């Protein structure tokens, strides 16, 4: 009897213990993620990782739209609003500002994705064919260049602030790290020239490897093309004051004959892929910067309406100007732009109208007198919106002034705001409750975030912060 008892017990114990070898079932691979090896293992997956570059470009704090907003609310045409804290302000903006930090961090996050992609693809040679590979590298470099363009122009004084642009730009990070906390990452600020040179070198590489654009469709507007690289190069050279090169690249875009102005200035904002759009950051109902970061949320009077348009901007246009009649509205006594109306609006980066005006500005500056071609170009833009109004210019200076005014009207709220004043050495006029900001004064460049200043002894803060 007693013996049986022990046998039963031993049996029960044995059954239980033998079933305890379940340790292996406890540990599972992630359901929701891939390893980097998996993400670059086949041509199809590499193609998706390349698409992921644009996902990084959509960064909601940066080129998902917010960077464009920051350039504009620090310009002269937006009402000072409370939503973005001190971002529209100058002397009261602190280096601890969270909006500034988020934008800076967002920009470098995009840069990191491009560097990571370039390294991961380099490590998998031959998985995709050479043309595909070149295109992917080109897209990565275009995105990197575009991101550095906004970083350097918002966080540093403009290119022409010192001769040779030897003043501090932003840290130039061109590779990833596996030791993110090591001192090797304490990269000092490159000079503005070095940053511009990198942007140009990336864009030239992109130009040579990206496909040419044909009919406007998602892949030719929402993804980088040869023309997009050329259009951005035209802008970069214009910012440098290198009018010959600006003209050269503007002409390259024009000469593709792929682009034209739409009949109405509104069209490019309602239809995402028109012949006027060269490059935009795409969004849709499923993929957008959501309710707190979308362009539409901030600008649209029927959404959150954070940003008002100042009467001084509206008064630049006559009563018949379509840019006023179609793109400006009034609500509760304030003006708003109608360029963005929904959370899924695309962020416009490069449009054909800018190329025409860039060409006009380059010609006007190169000419000793009044460039007739430049005047004609600026009138092409004007006549699209106000056919009965013709700009006349009696001197080179007045022509340039007219072109800059036309850029201000035409490209308003598309991320040019403060950059237009600084690149042309103009003061930012007093507007709303903000007093005039002198060209070259301390606060026109954003502060390097306080956290990075603390961590990286090699950084030098912009003066005043």
């Amino acid at each position, binding site marked *: 009897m007693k013996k049986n008892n022990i046998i039963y017990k031993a049996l029960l114990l044995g059954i239980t213990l033998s079933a305890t070898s379940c340790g292996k079932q406890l540990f599972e691979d992630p359901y929701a993620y891939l390893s980097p090896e998996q993400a670059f293992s086949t041509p199809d997956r590499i193609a998706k990782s390349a*698409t992921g570059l644009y996902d990084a470009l959509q960064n909601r704090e940066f080129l998902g739209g917010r960077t464009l907003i920051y350039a504009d609310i620090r310009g002269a045409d937006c009402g000072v609003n409370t939503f973005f804290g001190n971002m529209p302000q100058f002397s*009261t903006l602190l280096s601890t500002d969270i909006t500034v930090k988020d934008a800076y961090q967002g920009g470098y996050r995009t840069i990191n994705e491009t560097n990571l992609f370039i390294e991961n693809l380099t490590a998998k040679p031959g998985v995709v064919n050479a043309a595909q590979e070149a295109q992917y590298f080109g897209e990565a470099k275009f995105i990197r260049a575009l991101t550095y363009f906004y970083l350097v122009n918002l966080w540093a004084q403009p290119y022409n602030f010192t001769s040779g642009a030897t003043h501090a730009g932003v840290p130039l990070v061109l590779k990833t790290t596996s030791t993110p906390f090591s001192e090797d990452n304490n990269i000092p600020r490159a000079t503005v020239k070095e940053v511009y040179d990198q942007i140009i070198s990336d864009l030239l590489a992109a130009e040579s490897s990206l496909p040419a654009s044909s009919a406007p469709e*998602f892949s030719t507007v929402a993804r980088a093309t040869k023309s997009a690289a050329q259009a951005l190069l035209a802008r970069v050279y214009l910012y440098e004051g290198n009018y010959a090169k600006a003209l050269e690249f503007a002409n390259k875009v024009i000469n593709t004959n792929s682009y034209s102005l739409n009949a109405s200035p509104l069209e490019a904002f309602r239809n995402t892929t028109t012949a006027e759009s060269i490059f935009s950051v795409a969004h849709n109902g499923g993929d957008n910067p959501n309710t707190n970061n979308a362009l539409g949320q901030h600008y649209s009077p029927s959404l959150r309406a954070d940003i008002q348009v100042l009467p001084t901007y509206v008064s630049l246009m006559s009563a018949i100007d379509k840019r006023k009649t179609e793109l400006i509205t009034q609500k*509760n006594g304030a003006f708003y732009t109608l360029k963005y109306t929904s959370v899924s609006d695309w962020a416009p980066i490069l449009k054909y109208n800018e190329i025409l005006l860039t060409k006009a500005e380059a010609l006007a500056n190169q000419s000793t007198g009044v460039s007739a071609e430049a005047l004609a170009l600026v009138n092409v833009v004007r006549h699209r919106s106000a056919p009965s109004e013709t700009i006349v210019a009696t001197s080179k200076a007045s022509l340039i002034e007219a072109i800059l005014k036309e850029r201000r009207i035409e490209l308003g709220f598309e991320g040019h705001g403060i950059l237009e004043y600084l690149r042309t050495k103009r003061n930012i006029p007093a507007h709303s409750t903000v007093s005039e900001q002198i060209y070259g004064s301390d606060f026109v460049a954003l502060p390097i975030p306080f956290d990075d200043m603390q961590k990286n002894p090699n950084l030098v803060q912009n003066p005043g912060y």
Partner: protein
Amino acid sequence: MKHKLLSFFVGSMILTSVAFAQEKKVSGRVTGADGKPLVGVTITVQGSTVATQTDENGNYSLSVPIGKVIVFRSVGFSDKTLIVKERQSAFNISLDSNDNELEEVVVTGYGVRQIKDVIGSQSTVKGTALAAESNVSFDQALSGKVAGVQIGSTGGTLGDGISVRIRGVNSISSSSLPLYVIDGVPMNTVENVSELNSGDGTRFNPLSMINSNDIESIEVLKDAGASVLYGSRAANGVVMITTKRGKKGFNSVTFDSKFISSRASNLVSLLNGDQFIQINNEKAANGAPRFGGVTNVIAKESDLNGDGVNDRTNWLDEIYRQGTGFDNSMSVSGGSESVNYFASARYNDQRGILIGNDIKTGQARMNLDLKANSWFKTGVSLSYAKTKNNGILTDRYISGATVAGLNAFPIVSPYNPKNDFGYNLNGTGYLGLGNNMTVINGAGITGNIANPLATTNLQLNQNTPEQFLANIYGEITLLEGLKFTSKFGIDYLRNYEHQYSHPAVGGLGYAYNGLIQDYYRDNNLWVWQNYVNYDKTINGSHRISATAGAEYNYAKQKLTYAGASNVSDPYFTDILDNTYTGTVPGTEDVMLLSGGGLFSTGLESYFGRLGYSYNGKYLLEAAFRADAYSAFGVNSKWGYFPSISAGWVASEEDFMKSIDWLSYFKVKGSFGKVGNSRGIDPYAARTLYAGGAYASENGFSAYQLGNANLQWETTKKFDIGVDFKVDNGKYGFVIDYFNNDISGLVLDASPLYTVGVPRGSIYTNIGSMYNRGLEFTFNMETVKTENFTWNTSLNFTAIKNRVNELITANADIPSGNSVASVGRRLGEFKLLQWAGVDEQTGNPMWYSKDGVRKTYNPSVATAQRWTLDDGTVTTGITANDAVYTGKSGIPKFYGGLDNNFRYKNFDMGISLVYTGGYYIYNSTRANLLTNNFLNNSTEILDRWTTPGQKTDVPRLFLTDNTANQASDRFLEKGDFLRARTISLGYTFGGNKLNNAGIRSLRLYGQVYNAFVITSYSGQDPEVNSNRNNSNIAVGVDSRAVPQPRTYTFGLSLTLQ
């Protein structure tokens, strides 16, 4: 808690007397051989069903027929019988311990231990102390009850999480919440079931789904000696919940019913309509230089509700209300020689103090144990709970009640009968501001203000969580003293979160023409434990006890999201076929409103413990656990956690026995290593790519940079303490010194932004910190007479915290205005230094980092605004001028004082809690001094108006809020003493009730939060706007909901 094995049902004060015909009431006290009162001794009348139990002081009373035999029985003691004779009514009984039977035991990790063998630092709270409270969640009732445990409320919203800190904040980036173990099974670590609004809008803490009436006791394991068997999860301490089980020969049915009434205890004082008009027009008049030199009248009368008089609204009266609640529960309990059972059900329905905030919970439990034969015992514990929580957005959202309600103009009505839904809403769904000016020269002077009534009454923010907790065990006695236990437990938590945004209300509803968002959560956890326990006394003086076992723990979480936009009619508030288009309104663009997430974690563990005791005098114990956790790096998956403890019961020594006044004296110490893995992402160590779509193209993008060496935080815990009793147990003391040295802190650390890592941060084991402190507990039988008893219990904890090392020595980890900084206390505030208001100009002043006073004049051009004392223009005060204040939001000391009185059938309790040595950043106050066109607190009435005026509130200036920027102006001492509960009860007994089949009836009333003594100027010093699990930015008051003052009236009825 201390109790007798197999004697789980502790007689509460409701179980008092029994009487029937020809009977005599007898009473007395039951003590052990040592003279200490014995709790829970069963007293039965032989040959009848009459029974009672001794109370907390060993007292009993019951009515017995003359001549009958009554039996005193308690596990671990020999039975004692006596015959009731005519002239006797008082019997004081002393029970002799029975060495052959089980002794007094306590629940510990993986089994129970003889209490006299326990060396680790472990504290007990009885279930009865929790159940009387009106709080939704039991953990809140631990406040002030246990030395070393700090309970922090995050505000007065129902269902919100509670901050539980055992011996300080023991992490910086990871969670500092303890591990919860229920009936031996570790629970899931979901701290908040909500997902929408990043889980930060409405919140629900699943711990509130445990029925506090079911709790027999709670053990808090504090040092390594007590908690090491939980290894990698023990660093924040362990809270073990034991639920009630039936008891042999003691059948009962108990009903508990409570009525609860609550009110906000203290509210901010806001401007009334007339004051609002005066103050805001003064802002505009002073601000004229910034607005074209024109003096605008911005605040104007309106009559929006159409009642013919100018609108006046007290918004606080609109958003706060009288809370009410009903809480009814029932339990049955009993048992025989081989089976015991406990079952309960509860329905709790509470309306919170904020409009729209209520909670309804139903709970049921069944605990069953079966002794099949002499060697096999089995049992189950099953519980199910379902809650419906109507939540409300409060502090961080435009539509939050304490954002909107505090900002809203008192000169506009909440209602406008001309609008579709009767609420005062403007063209974009925000509060209509009538005739007031909102824009001057293109500059907005106010902001979007939600109408809190429309927001709450038209919209929904609901959580419907369900939790099923179950375990089944089998216990085999292999040899005498050797038991094998296999236990399998599950914790299944699911939640349905439902949010409806109305098309008329600004924000999501307006933007999407009605938006419905649902989240489905499934958290599935199973745990399988197999262990042996051995307990053997050799030669009467050497006692050996041992535990060895394995545990497997698997958890899986699945989230599914669905949404519907552009809804055909506000009548439809759920996702219903064909009632929505799913488009972005005004476009053909279809919103993608579906998504989800899925992950699993595994924990494989082996553990062992060996204890030795010599004559109950010398105690030695060593324990060990090895854990492998799936979240950690391939290079460091396994962690090993040892501890060693020793104790000396000096009072057992012959030379101590002569010291009469010292009845018990024990010295104990422990040292060990435990870990913290809580709050770390499931795949934290890996480099990962995730889906990264670009519009309608699928893509992959980097999700996380991995760290193959990632491991748990390691805490070396040292504890030394004494436990002694004086004057025959009348005074009891427990004093512990502890030192938690935490190294390898898992910091979700941000490298330079320029490194650009995905997520912005990487889990890294760099950083160290310590918490050193002293715990003191004192219990006293202050008065003890026949009719009157008074017990006092005091505890005190002091903690010193220092951060020793961080990822980058010269870079603090900031969180709001607080930092983790090397060489400083965690959560130290780093702020600008306020220098007051210039008496002559009314302009605000600060000190620069170097102590130079600078004045800010908002009236002049930007470049001239900052001046030195001599009037010369200078550079502005910037972030670089912030200094360490030496003040932290984390308390230096805290504790509680309980006094319980009993006079005849009356009982009364007063429970005080206190916390001190910490500061609060009063962001609410800063906000309510705004210069925007919004409502203010009455503090703004002190603003500077005339030269020579001494005040701390600068001259007003429309839209310029530099004066209110974060500085030590708003840093306030938080120290407080709260009358947490005051209760009064009366217990009925006697023949009439007994004849009606009622054993006892107790009526009671309780006031929760009767008063707070503090110098803090805000609503409530026990606040943390950064939720229950923030470690750095603690002590921030940002539009918090104050704790309620609650009145509870209850009755407990026990049937026999």
